[in-house]
């Protein structure tokens, strides 16, 4: 018997509860990534080379090392410096920082697409750096890059199973525990795969919808 439907329905409620943890980690992680990414992108544009270079090195470093090791680093190494994080916090923080580095590149592309004249006009109107960013640059730079950010949201979502490595009870970890209890891995792991497949197909369709909607709004202006 390759597939046991009774067992499937038995484990479904527990997997659904775990799916909530996965979604929670995704959303908190992405809010963190979007905010940190914006901050990093702005820091990389700083006139002071010490700031811009260290932001660039940070981004490159985060992007060239595996997320799993970064999760381990936050979870195992930080306690040595007196910062003890729970598995969930460390995992979400690592997801946020890792994808923040990716998002900063997206924002940077958005900023680079702003015509020079916008900066000059802001300068001519005697706007400060904060006002320039808040009222002139960011409102124009962000909307075109929202689809790219959406793709990273989906990518981040698909990386949440890594949190199982530090025993966060998200979907993958729950599936593994269910599998080891019953020695039936087929159902839990296949269900987890299906869940990710459906969720990412649906969200990819949503991103495409936003993309066409933004395209229409952009043309109207």
């Amino acid at each position: 018997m390759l597939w046991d439907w009774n067992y499937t329905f038995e484990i479904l409620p527990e997997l659904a509860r775990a799916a909530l943890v996965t979604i929670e980690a995704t959303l908190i992680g992405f809010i963190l990534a979007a905010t940190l990414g914006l901050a990093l992108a702005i820091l990389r544009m700083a006139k002071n080379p010490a700031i811009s270079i260290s932001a660039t090195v940070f981004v490159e470093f985060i992007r060239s090392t595996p997320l799993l090791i970064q999760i381990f680093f936050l979870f195992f190494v930080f306690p040595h410096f007196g910062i003890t994080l729970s598995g969930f916090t460390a995992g979400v923080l690592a997801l946020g920082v890792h994808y923040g580095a990716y998002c900063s590149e997206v924002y940077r592309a958005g900023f680079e697409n702003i015509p020079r004249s916008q900066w000059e006009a802001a300068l001519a109107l005697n706007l400060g750096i904060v006002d320039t960013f808040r009222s002139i640059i960011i409102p124009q730079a962000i909307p075109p890059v929202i689809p790219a950010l959406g793709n990273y949201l989906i990518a981040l979502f698909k990386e949440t199973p890594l949190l199982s490595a530090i025993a966060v009870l998200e979907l993958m970890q729950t599936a593994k525990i269910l599998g080891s209890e019953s020695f039936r891995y087929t159902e839990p792991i296949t269900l987890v795969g299906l869940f990710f497949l459906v969720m990412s197909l649906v969200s990819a369709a949503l991103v495409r919808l936003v993309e066409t909607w933004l395209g229409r709004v952009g043309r109207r202006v």
Partner: protein
Amino acid sequence: MAILLAFAAGVVLASYAGFREFLPGLIEGAWVTVQITVLGAMLAVVAALIAALAKMYGPWPLRWLAIAYIEIFRGTSALVQLFWLFFVLPHFGIVLEPLTVAVLGLGLNVGAYGAEVVRGAIQAVPRGQWEASTALNMSRASALSRIILPQALVAMIPPWGNLFVELLKATALVSLITLGDLAFRAQQMNQTTLRTVDIFSIVLVIYLCLALVLSQSMRALERWAARGIARGRVA
């Protein structure tokens, strides 16, 4: 940029006390990581080419198979795929070595992303090239293999470079299916010595160096492949 990072990495490495103690074991793990990356990359390129060509030019059963492959592997997590191959396939009587699972899982995963890269690169070849091939009385197959693909291959090197770095980073996942790669060695050493800070810092630096070597070699390959190609379009 790369020089800066390499310098920083060198400084970190040189200043470590635990460096001599842990490096030999970690290098052994890194060797497994390199093996999986290279084998996985080869599988990924082959899978991507086949899937992209099947999706674009295949008869409908092949096309649907290719679309299913691409969407399934892009739509689910790499870790879920590895676990599925490692834990579920044995129930169907197929028991694979962890190394095989790692190469198969990661290679097919990256191959699915690569298929879209290949498709994009083929579509980016100007239509005129197809039309000129038709004018020269070439068959579709020989136009594809002798005119279109050679041009598309050059265009797809930079995105493949990014995918290979993603693959290198994804190899850390194989530590979770009991394969003795760099990440696995690090955890093992961490459990026996508890010198967490040293070990994980060295591991991060090793991954960084591997990623730098990989991206620099891809850039060299890019320059090599682009030699002799006229930049811009002939008016």
